[in-house]
Structure formats: structure tokens, C-alpha cells
């Protein structure tokens, strides 16, 4: 598609300011008819804000939107739809218990004498699905179809006769390779009909399979747009992470050379279909293994599979060389494994309980319900941790949901530290933590490791990974694609491995 022609959608100088955050800063963006345009960026880069402004879910604070060269106002999602912009959101806005017909005609049912004509509705639903070459029984409930088919039904619902722009927000997140290919065939077909497609994804491989052009957002700014062949992987990932290769990072500590020690925990082909490809990984006492990769590359998935929070369907885990069954968090904790989840609100804190109770919880579960820690012991452990981690709370009896985010994170960390694990898995240990606490936690990780703990640290921040890791497992598209050891651990090498160089 030549650049000179009038773009289907053009955003000029778009800004959006949320309290204390500039979500989008003077973004210029063009989406052409008949192209698949991939939009990439890490968490908080502004992708979803941009989509929401394009689809009328949010109002811009500055800038201009043009469609086919004419300036337009998009005040609501209904107005966006009237202008031919359709969106399929990541969380499917479909109702699983209703039939396909009802899902496809939810907003506008064909009527006859003021009553709904289900015969006509069925015809209309089949028509819509035919455009995607989908021939299924439309009377069956949506939930009885595979996720891939549900995704296609969502697209069928979004596509109107006059749809000219289709926004797909991570449509392949829960699809396997075969299902993704099915979706891509349909995307190519829609493209051939002149529809402009904006494709948001975290899967780098898929971008190179389907996209004609790529745009990258970082910290609310558009940092690059280029035709796919002109943007090699390495350059794309550097753009997303905001670093040129060759910049120096903080100094790593010298490699300890203890890598030859027997591993505490090893995984052999551990994986789960549609979740994470089988991987091998070894964790040794006194060693920090970093998990690096872009958003959605499988960092959290790896951590949860090892801990048994999500059941693997292939492979096994050995502890001290002996096969061990880690099929639930309880079993893992019994083997001395701890896991600090990334989403502490949803998966970590018990909000009504006090700081003290939250801190002693994992140790108590490890002891069992009959051997209650004495109140004095609980208070001593809580006081020790509040001091050691610098948790800002007036006292240990405060409900934990009254603490700030950073302090809550420390409480969860404290919970696992007092349980004295042999293996500790930290998923984004510094997410949402201020700079001072950040350095404290990094120092703490190093200290724990020196005490002989085996650590697995997943982080989206390359600097953090490089600062703490003796070894880095690199992930891409839910696959482990490489391992970097000792002195080789550097930002450049991680980026190269992510890019598959």
C-alpha cells in the first residue's frame, strides 16, 4: 500500500492525559485500507488508550482524527461503529451460555409484528458466519465451541456490512498454532476485501507472519512505524524496550563459578498445551536464575507451572534429583518452594487479615493447622520482617489492605521469607514499588541467594534481570528460546536472544 494515498484512519498529534500520567503524547498514526498493521508495546506503553480513542471508548485531550481524509469526532463506541470501525476486545464480549444466534443478534434482533423473529435471526447469523467461511450449528450455546471458534464468532459479530476498520486486541492470546493459522487465513481474506486491520499482539513471531506494517509505542509515544521487512526483530525489540544495543547497564556481580553444584530443582519438558511450551530448567542453591522476555512471552506461566499453581500436562519436576509431584501449591510448599505472584491483590493478599497474619500464613500452612504458631512467635516474626524489609506500617495489627502497594508487596515477600523455602520464585518482585524500595529488594534478592536459596526471578525489566541473575532463561512466545550464563548475561545478549538472532 503506497504511503502517498489517503490513509483509512489517520491520527494526528493525539494526546491523552490521565491524572499524573501522560498516556499518549502527540501520537501520529496511520492505518491504510487493505493492510494488517501490528501495534506493539510493553505494559503501559499506551496501546489500549490508543485503541480506545480510535473506537470511541475514550475522548482524546488533543489532536485530530481523520477517516478517509475527513476530520471526524468519535464520541462513543456507537459512533465509531457508524463510521465503520469495529473492535474485537481481548476479553470476548460474548455470553457463553447463549446460543450463537442470540450472541450474533444481541443488539439488533430482527422483528416481525413487534416480536422477535428467531427464524430471521438464524438466517442473519448464518449469513454473517458465511463471510468468515464458518459453517456451524448456530443454535448451540457459544460455550460448546472451542475458543478459536468463539474468537471467530466474536469477529463475525464485530463485522458489519460496512466495516472498513477492524481492531483485533490480542486475538491469538489463547489460541494454539493451528487455531492461529485458521484466524490468520480469515484476516488475510478480510484484508483482500480492503478492510484495514489493526492487530495488537505480544507474539513477535506472529507479527512477522501476518503484519504488513508495524508501529511501536513506548511510554505514550510512537517510537517507530515501518513496513515489516524494514524492521528486523532485533531493531523491533530494541524499540519496544527503549534501548539501543551497546548501552552499558549497571555492573553485574562477578560470577560465583558455583554453577557446577547439583541442582535443587530441575524441570524436564514441563509444559501445558495453549499455555507454555515444554521447557527444561535447573535451579541451584545460591544461584539466581532470571526469566526474561517480552510481555506475554511466558514468564508468569513458567513460574506457575513450576509451583503447581497451574497443572502441567507434560513433563516432570525433580527435587534433589528425585522425581517429585508438584501438582498443587500445597505440595510445592511441602517441598520447600515459595512463590510470590505478580498480581498481589488478586493472588497474594488476604485483605481483611492483618499484616502479621498475612506474613505468617505460608509458614503456618507448612506447619499444618494443628501446630499453631504462638502469638508471641507470630509477633516476633512479623516485627522482624517489618524491620528487615522496612515495611511502613504503624503496627503489625493493621489490616493489610490499608497499606500502600509497595508495602503490600513487601508483606507478600515477607510471607515467603519466614516460611524458609529452599527455592523461591519471584514474579515481578519490584512491580509497583518506588525507586528506593526497588534497590532494597534487589539487594535483598542477592542477600538471600548468598544464604544458599535457589531463586527464580521473573521480571519485565531487563536491568533488574541483568543486575540480579547468574543465569538467564530467555522466553519468546511462550517458549524457552535460550539460556545465557555468567559473564554472557547482558542486556544486549538478552535482546539478541529474544529476537532469535
Amino acid at each position, binding site marked *: 500500500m503506497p504511503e502517498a494515498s489517503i490513509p483509512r484512519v489517520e491520527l494526528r498529534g493525539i494526546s491523552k492525559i490521565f491524572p499524573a500520567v501522560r498516556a499518549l503524547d502527540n501520537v501520529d498514526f496511520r492505518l491504510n485500507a487493505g493492510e494488517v498493521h501490528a501495534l506493539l508495546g510493553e505494559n503501559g506503553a499506551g496501546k489500549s488508550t490508543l485503541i480506545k480513542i480510535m473506537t470511541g471508548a475514550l475522548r482524546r485531550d488533543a489532536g485530530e482524527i481523520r477517516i478517509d481524509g475527513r476530520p471526524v469526532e468519535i464520541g462513543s463506541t456507537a459512533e465509531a461503529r457508524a463510521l465503520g470501525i469495529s473492535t474485537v476486545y481481548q476479553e470476548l464480549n460474548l455470553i457463553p451460555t447463549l446460543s450463537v444466534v442470540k450472541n450474533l443478534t444481541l443488539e439488533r434482533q430482527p422483528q416481525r409484528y413487534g416480536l422477535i423473529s428467531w427464524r430471521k435471526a438464524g438466517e442473519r447469523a448464518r449469513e454473517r458466519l458465511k463471510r468468515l467461511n464458518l459453517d456451524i450449528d448456530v443454535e448451540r450455546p457459544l460455550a460448546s465451541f472451542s475458543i478459536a471458534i468463539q474468537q471467530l464468532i466474536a469477529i463475525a459479530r464485530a463485522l458489519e456490512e460496512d466495516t472498513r476498520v477492524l481492531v483485533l486486541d490480542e486475538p491469538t492470546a489463547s489460541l494454539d498454532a493451528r487455531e492461529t493459522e485458521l484466524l490468520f487465513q480469515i484476516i488475510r481474506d478480510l484484508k483482500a476485501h480492503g478492510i484495514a486491520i489493526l492487530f495488537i499482539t505480544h507474539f513477535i513471531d506472529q507479527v512477522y507472519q501476518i503484519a504488513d506494517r508495524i508501529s511501536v509505542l513506548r511510554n505514550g509515544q510512537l517510537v517507530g512505524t515501518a513496513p515489516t521487512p524494514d524492521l528486523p526483530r532485533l531493531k523491533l525489540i530494541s524499540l519496544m524496550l527503549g534501548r539501543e544495543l551497546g548501552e552499558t547497564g549497571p555492573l553485574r556481580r562477578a560470577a560465583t563459578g558455583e554453577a557446577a553444584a547439583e541442582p535443587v530443582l530441575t524441570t524436564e519438558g514441563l509444559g501445558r498445551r495453549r499455555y507454555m511450551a515444554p521447557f527444561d530448567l535447573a535451579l541451584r542453591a545460591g544461584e539466581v536464575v532470571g526469566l526474561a522476555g517480552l510481555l506475554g512471552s511466558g514468564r508468569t506461566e513458567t513460574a506457575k507451572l513450576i509451583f503447581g499453581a497451574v497443572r502441567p500436562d507434560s513433563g516432570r519436576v525433580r527435587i534433589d534429583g528425585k522425581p517429585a509431584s508438584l501438582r498443587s501449591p500445597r505440595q510445592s510448599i511441602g517441598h520447600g518452594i515459595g512463590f510470590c505472584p505478580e498480581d498481589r491483590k488478586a493472588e497474594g*493478599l488476604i*485483605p481483611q*487479615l492483618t499484616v502479621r497474619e498475612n506474613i505468617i*500464613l505460608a509458614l503456618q500452612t507448612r506447619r499444618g493447622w494443628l501446630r499453631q504458631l504462638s502469638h508471641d512467635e507470630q509477633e516476633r516474626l512479623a516485627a522482624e520482617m517489618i524491620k528487615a524489609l522496612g515495611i511502613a506500617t504503624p503496627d503489625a495489627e493493621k489490616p493489610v489492605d490499608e497499606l500502600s502497594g509497595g508495602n503490600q508487596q513487601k508483606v507478600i515477600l515477607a510471607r515467603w521469607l519466614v516460611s524458609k523455602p529452599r527455592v523461591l520464585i519471584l514474579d515481578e518482585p519490584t512491580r509497583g514499588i518506588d525507586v528506593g524500595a526497588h534497590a532494597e529488594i534487589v539487594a535483598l534478592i542477592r542477600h538471600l541467594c548468598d544464604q544458599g536459596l535457589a531463586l527464580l526471578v521473573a521480571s519485565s525489566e531487563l536491568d533488574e534481570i541483568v543486575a540480579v541473575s547468574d543465569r538467564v532463561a530467555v522466553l519468546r512466545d511462550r517458549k524457552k528460546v535460550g539460556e545465557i550464563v555468567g559473564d554472557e548475561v547482558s542486556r544486549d545478549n538478552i535482546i539478541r536472544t529474544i529476537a532469535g538472532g
Partner: protein
Amino acid sequence: MDRAKGTSAAMATLRARLGELVGRPWLWPIVALALILLVDSVVSPGFFSISIVQGRLFGSTIDVLYRGTPTALVALGMAVVIGTKGIDLSVGAVIAIVGAVMTNLIHRDMAPPLVLALTLGTGLLCGLWNGFLVAILDIQPIIATLILMVAGRGIALLIDEGLIVTFRSDFFSAISTGEFLTVPSRILVAAGTFLALWLLLRRTALGLFIESVGGNAAAADLAGINAKLVKIGAYMLSGLCSGIAGVLICGDIRGSDSNNAGLFIELDAILAVVIGGGSLAGGRFFLGLSVVGVLIIQGLTTSILVSGLPPEYNMVVKGAVVLIVLLLQSRRMRGSILGVFGRRRA
């Protein structure tokens, strides 16, 4: 100048203290109970006087305790279930089943202690059923326990063959309506149950696990708690408590009245737990305060009776008092109460 500063500092301390006090979960239920008892003693002089009549404690306060006992027992179990973010609507039906089983066994000339054990076992079994539906089949608690609430009285009637069956048993009459060292024995039964539950839940880690499961099930799971087992245990405790209440109620009327035994007791029990600061959102339970909640409800009933108002007022006044106590417990409401203090100062 300095003095003014000193005064305002003292006021600030006072206000902080007040704020802390107002935020305590135990304050409002206890204040409410004290107020109700105060009103009672004004309306009915001699309310607090206790005498010994025929070797037994006698007085209005004893009466409140005596009458509140079955509800208090049910409320204890309910508090635990509500702590897991559940609810148990079947408690009244469990009382009916337990009563029918007990009556039936007494008529078989079984030894009374064995009857008692089998009867309480029936309560536990009912709780196991509820726990199975909630924890294993993953049915929402309100629906899961509704099943037994509806079916339970039918089961009890089947056991009774549709009749009100009476019995004579010195053993069960002594438990329900007798006295021990001048204290009505049912009050001792309730106190003993309370103590046993408190030891079980607060002197082991079980209470913490129950509150963790109710507060955030996903986090509790990742912390290694077996949420299914904890939930089943909670419903079994509730079944056991209802069973004990059933023994007292049937021992009192010396028979099994499956249509009426424990009818609507679940409503008073849930109210008592909520008045006692337990939230239906789960995550916290207070055994002692739930009992205070029962005493508030029972105290109100007694007040209306002694004040000479027609008993129809009971329901309406109960509703109003519950509303007031709940409002006082909401954080936002407390905030505005403090706000009033603040404005007055300024």
C-alpha cells in the same frame, strides 16, 4: 498562645483516640447491647435483679440468656460459615432432622448417651452434605444450603411419619431444661460449645485458614491452604452447632415438631453474625460478637414484652435496630460521625 496550642494538641490526641475507638469492631454491638439493657432496666425496674428460686437462678437477664441459647448456638456455626464467604440456610431444617432422629432413637430404647452421639453425628452429616455441595460440586452456598433447607423438613416429617412425636427422657430434659449448680444447664451447654469452638478455631490455625479462604480464595490456595477441606469443615461445624441447638429445642418440648422446630432460626442467626461485625463478603468471623448479636436480638424481644407493647412491634423494632447497628459499622458512616465531631471543634 502556648495554652491554646496545648489544648488543640490535646484535642487532636483525643480525636485520634476517639477515631481509633470508633473503628474497633467490638464497640458498636456492645454499645447497642448496653443501651437495650439500659432501656429494659428503666422500663422494668428490677430487670437486673437475680434471685434463686427453687434452687435455680431466676431473673430477666437469665431469661434473655436462656431464650437466646439455641439461636446463639446456631449463630456460632453460622459465623464460621460466613467467615468462609458462605452461608448456611439449612440450619433450621437440620434442627428438625436432628429432632426427628433423636425422638426416633429414644423410642428404640437406646442408651441416652448413644442417642446423643448419633444425634450430633446426624448434624455433622448434614454439614458434610452442605460442604460437599459447596466445596466439591462448587454450587453457590446460598443455593447449596437451600436444597437441604427445603428438603430437610420433608426428611424430618418422613422420619416422624408426619406426626408430632413426643417422648419422655430425663436425660434430655436435664440437658435442655434442667440446672446444674443453680445455672440452667442449656446455658452451660452453650458456654461449653463456645469454649470448645474458640479453642478449636483460635488456639489452632484453623480460624486463620477459614478467614484466608473467605478473604481471598486464590491467594489462600497459593499460600498452600486446602480450601475445599476448610470449607467442608466449616459447614460440618455449622451442622454440629445446629445439632446441639436441635437437642435443646426438642428436649424442651419433649418431642419432635418437624414443621416448627427451628423455623426461621437461620434469619436470626445470620442477623446476629452480621450485627456482630461479620461481613457476608467473608474473611472475618467473631464468635463472641456473634453471641452479643444474639443477645441484642433476644434483649429487644424481651424489652418489647416487658414494655407492654404488642408483640407485633417486635419485628419492626428488630429491623430498625439492626439497620442502626449496621450503619454504625460502615466505615463511611463512621467517617461522617467523626466529621461531625471535627466540625464542632472548628
